[in-house]
Each structure stands twice: as C-alpha cells, then as structure tokens.
C-alpha cells in the first residue's frame, strides 16, 4: 500500500503532502509574524498588517543602541560556551567511568542522576541565591555557569554513558596493553568513538543554557550581566511594550541557535532516540 504509484495530480495533492503543508504552516506562520514584525516601522506594529509597509532596520539598531542587547548577547555567549565546555569535559569522564569501569553503586548513581535531571529549578533557587550572595557571586558569569553545569550534567552523563557502552572493549584494551595512561586512553581511543554522543550532549546543553530564564532572572539582575532571555523580558517599560525592538532582538537571538540546530539536527534526533532507547 505504501509503495502504491500515484498518478496525475494525485502525485502532488494527497494526504501526505496536505498534512505536511499544514504542519509547515503551523510552524512557520508565527515565525513569519515574528520576523515581519521585527522589520515593521512603528505605525505598522499597532495594527495587524500582513506585510510591512516599508522595511525598516530601525528596530534592530534600537535593540543595540537604545537598549543594551549587545551586552546581553555577549553575556549569553560567554555563559553558554563556558558551561557547554565544562559539561562536555566533566560529562565525558563521568560517562566513561559509569559506562565502562567496574564501580559498585553505579546503578544507584544513574537512577539518582535521572531523578535530579527532572528536579524543578525553583526548589534550589532560594538557598543558591543566599549562597551566591554570601560568597559575593551575584551578578557574575560564574553565578550562572555553576548551576547550569550542575543541571545539564546528569543528562550529558546519561547520553555519553550510553554511547560509551557501545564502543568495543578490544580497542580500549589495546591502549592499556600499550601502557597508555587512563586519561590518554579516554582521550585518544574512547573519545573519537563517542564523538556523536559529544555532539548530542553539546547541542542539548547549549540550547538549555541559551534559553534558561529563572536562574538568570534571579542571580544576575544587573544590566551588565543579564543574558538574552532576561534582557528581552525586561525590555518592556511600564506603559508601552516595545514589540518592534523585542522582535528584532529575538530574531538576532534565534539565528545562531537555529543554525546550530540545523547543522546538528541528526544528533538532536539520535540523542532523543538513543538517549532513551538503545540496544
């Protein structure tokens, strides 16, 4: 049935193409509205005009000049990159150990990590805030890098462990017989094999950090350390919400993550299926 040849116009107009088209429109229409609104001059924003009457870059320059979107972008980039690097290094070591070394209690450790990965961030918000205040870390990069690392590690360890388990043992033994040190074995033999796992863990961690709101809102309220989500949420004044500026900033914030997801889409999907079901 599935391989039935479609002839004439049925080749183009059928259930599959129509449903696909509906799905595409369902995703694209709100996105179109976001992009179109970001180019609209102020007058167009106050009515539901389908197309901008003229393309204006005013909202974009306003986001960077009138507001400090450049600072927010830089802060997001620093926090996200630092966290992703940390998570991949610590996650690889832990994933390797929990996947391949004969440790007692690793079963319990994995279950605890699974539980921690669904824990609501609000449960640790107040104590962490007090702790960070105590050590003078409020409004700093490390105030976000530390909790982001901790909250993204459990999932990364899970993904990496699942990849590590699939690597043939013989390769590792060869390294060991050659007398390579343990760290070297991980670096030069295990790591190249686990590369897809690193991509998957990396893209998930990057996305989570780029989009995180609650910690950033609570710990870094000063303008110089705000990240993109907090910056955009606080663009609004008391009376008028500057939607044009908000959407211009939103487009700039979405393009890099959109490109990354496009490049690494295979690893996102494989992470979803292999992270949960493997073997």
């Amino acid at each position: 049935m599935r391989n039935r040849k479609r002839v004439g116009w049925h080749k183009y107009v059928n259930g599959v193409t129509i449903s696909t088209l509906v799905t595409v429109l369902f995703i694209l229409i709100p996105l179109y509205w976001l992009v179109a609104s970001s180019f609209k001059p102020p007058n167009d924003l106050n009515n539901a005009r389908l197309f901008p009457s003229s393309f204006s870059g005013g909202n974009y320059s306003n986001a960077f000049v009138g507001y400090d979107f450049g600072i927010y972008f830089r802060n997001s980039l620093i926090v996200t990159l630092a966290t992703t690097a940390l998570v991949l290094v610590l996650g690889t070591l832990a994933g390797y150990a929990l996947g391949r070394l004969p440790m007692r209690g690793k079963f319990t450790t994995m279950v605890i990590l699974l539980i921690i990965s669904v824990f609501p961030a609000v449960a640790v918000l107040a104590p962490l805030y007090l702790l960070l205040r105590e050590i003078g870390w409020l409004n700093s990069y490390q105030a976000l890098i530390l909790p982001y690392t901790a909250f993204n590690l459990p999932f990364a360890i899970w993904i990496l462990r699942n990849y590590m388990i699939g690597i043939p043992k013989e390769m590792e033994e060869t390294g060991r017989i050659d007398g390579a040190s343990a760290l070297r074995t991980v670096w030069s033999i295990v790591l190249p094999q686990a590369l897809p796992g690193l991509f998957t863990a990396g893209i998930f961690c990057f996305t989570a950090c780029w989009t995180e709101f609650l910690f950033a809102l609570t710990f870094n309220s000063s303008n110089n350390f705000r990240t993109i989500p907090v910056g955009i949420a606080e663009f609004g004044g008391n009376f008028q919400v500057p939607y044009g500026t908000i959407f211009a900033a939103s487009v700039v914030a979405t393009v890099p993550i959109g490109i990354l997801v496009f490049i690494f889409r295979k690893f996102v999907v494989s992470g979803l299926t292999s992270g949960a079901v493997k073997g």
Partner: protein
Amino acid sequence: MTAISSASGQSAAGQVRPVVPPVPRPDINRKRLARMGWGFSAPALVVIAAVTIFPIVYSVIMSLNNVTVTGSGFSLDGFTFSNYNLLLHASLWRDALFFTVYYTVVTVIIELVIGTCIALVLERLVAGRGYMMALLLLPWSMITVINAELWAYIYNGTYGVADYILGGLGFGHPVILGTPTPAIIGLMIADIWKTTPFVAAEMDGASGWYTFWRITLPLLRPTIALAVIFRVLQAFGLFDLPYVMTGGGPGTSTQSLAILAYNALFKNLAFGPGAAVATSTALLVLLGCLASLRVFRVQVGQEGN
C-alpha cells in the same frame, strides 16, 4: 567480570606456570579500575551535589523554620510547621497546584498525540526530510521568553492578529490574556506550538500506522512511558511562559507553583512560606519519580549492568 580483567586473567593462566592462582590479579585490577572510576566521576558528581542536593536539603530546613529577614540577611528562628500549615490552608497553593497539574497533563497529552500523528505522516515523506527535521526542531530551540512575547503580541487586545481573526469569524473581541479561561487556552496554544514539533521529531521513524500499533508501540512502551513521565515531571517546574505572558494572571488563574514560590521568595521576601512552596513542588516531583522508579530501573538495567 569485565572483559579487561578476564583477559588479563587468561594471559596469566596461559603462561608456563599454571600453578599461580589467577584470581588475585583481576581482583586488584578491578579495585584499581573502580577507584579510577570514582576519581573520574568525582568532579561531575561533586558539582551536581553542591548545586542540587545540598540546596534542596537547605530548602527543607528553611521551610521548617521561622525565617526572619533582617537588614543584612536572614535568620532561622526555631522549628515550626506553620509554613506548611499555611500552604494547606491557603487557597493560593491549592489553586497553583491545580493549575500546574491540569496544565501539564493537558498539554503533554495533546503534544504527544498530535506529535505522533505528524511523525506518522512525515515518515511517508519522500523528499526533504532533513529540512523538515530542522524545521521541527526550530521552535524547540527558541528561547521560551521570545515565544511568550510573540504570543502575547498575537493575543494583544487592541492590535493583536488573534483579535482580528476572532472578530472576523464572529467571536467578538474577547480580552484573551485578561480573562481566565482564554488566558489558559492561550498559554496552552503557545506551549503546544513550541513543543509538538519536537515530539514529532522525537517520534521520527514511527513506520506507518499498522507497524506503529502492532510493533513500535508495544516495543517502545517503556520508552514512551519514560518520555511521558519525564515530560510531565519536567513541565511541573512551569515558569517562563506564564511569568512573561500573563504574570500569573488575570488574578491568580495562571499562577503555577514555581511562580507562586518565586513571588513569595523574591517579591514578598517570605522565605519560610516560599521555601515551603518550593519544597512541596520538589516533593511532588520526587513522589512522581519514586512512583515510576520501576520504569527508571528498566531503563538503567537495559544496558546490562
């Protein structure tokens, strides 16, 4: 016994002196490897514990104390159960709990059903599946705050496009985010838009209706169960979308447990009751985890420990 230790055991046994018992060596090796394993995992586990487990314990302590906020900080003034007493008798907490549970369950079910349907259709797509996959992942990768701002603009009462459409269809001009039920539906639509395509990507390779019902579904049942449990528990921390879109309003109709806790802690500086709300939320998630521990176990055990 791992392959590494048995291999070294064999090489010892294969030597000219079979008299030497091969047992002690693998054991030492095993111990050494185990120590190395804990050494390798220690940095990650320490960071996780420092930021999750210790603060949670401290949250519990705070919630069981009379907390007084002073000029320079705060102090714990003795054990009390009054913070929890307050919760149990406050309609705010019950309303937030009800909203969070109801919102989470409804959105997760809708997203799962529609997402699976989309996946089953896309599976038959001949060309352009790679691009389709990237498109499905795009809303997921977007910042939730942006999603919230976009939909708040669409729902705006004076110039929102939803207002024009509803008016054109003869539904009049409801104040969408200013009336409880439309506000909840509005939030759900924004949530469904962001998450459903992701679920579809997750279900990719569902291989047609028949195969899906007869083979994929039974085979994947533990995995789907895990995915559903995971999503429900994760969604339980619901904060970003209602905080930005409605601020928990109108009134308190879209106030989730996380928003209630955040407002109590950082707007009213009521640390005791705030910690009690936060702790109760965590406790409910933990109960959910324990209830599904069997599914979790299956998941870990699958790899053959």
